[in-house]
């Protein structure tokens, strides 16, 4: 009984020492230093699962307020320029997804005072729809555009 109590005390002392060190900034876990990458949302293979993991909801409604710009034909699937813009009031997050890619979620941009606009270049494995999803007021809005890919961007 006595010895158990000793062990317990020792253990809790050690644990609190670590806690203090973190608090004092002696140890800085990576998660604290940078915004954490939503690993699960990016590793899942399902379109709905990706959205659910990222936004906590799914079932985006098609909206004319979302503008997606992408080429009709992309000769090289490794470099497909995509621009997504949202005119939905209160848009705080825009994501790009490609259903046919090994993992559908390509990237997402969270806006804090910036305009709900983003443009980048993405990889596509094959001819598919590029989907832009905007998150506004707890709801999801989307627009899609088909891109014909002549050479896939995933092989080597």
């Amino acid at each position, binding site marked *: 009984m006595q010895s158990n109590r000793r062990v317990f005390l020792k253990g809790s002392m050690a644990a609190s020492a670590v806690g203090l060190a973190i608090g004092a900034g002696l140890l800085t876990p990576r998660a604290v230093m940078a915004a954490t990458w939503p690993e699960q949302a990016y590793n899942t293979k399902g379109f709905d699962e990706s959205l659910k993991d990222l936004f906590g909801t799914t079932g985006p409604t098609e909206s004319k307020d979302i503008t997606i710009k992408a080429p009709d034909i992309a000769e090289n699937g490794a470099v497909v320029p995509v621009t997504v813009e949202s005119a939905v009031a209160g848009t705080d997050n825009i994501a790009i997804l490609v259903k046919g890619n090994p993992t559908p979620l390509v*990237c*997402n941009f969270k806006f804090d005072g*910036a*305009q709900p606009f*983003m*443009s*980048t*270049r993405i990889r596509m494995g094959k001819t598919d729809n590029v989907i832009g999803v905007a998150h506004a007021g707890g709801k999801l809005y989307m627009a899609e555009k088909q891109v014909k890919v002549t050479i896939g961007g995933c092989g*080597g």
Partner: protein
Amino acid sequence: MSSIKMRISAAGDVLDVKSLIEQVMETGRLKDKATGKLIPANYIQTLTVAVNDKVAVEANLSVAVSKNPYINVKVPGKKGDKVTIAYTTNEGKTDSETTTA
């Protein structure tokens, strides 16, 4: 030298920030032809764009973003403001670059 190149054009109270980042964006799915082994994944996971040290855009990227990523965002600000882009890779490497608009 920084791996981040930035060009900013100011229009009223909006800064149009165009950026090219030199990064391999390795997917971890490709095989090294010489050794037959998989090339380990090496890509940017998180990226922030800040104006005068206030974060305006927080982005998450994945392996489906092209090699040497091009990023274009529109952040609030005016001429003379400091724009900082910073990123972290899956290996924990970081880089940042500050440019005055």
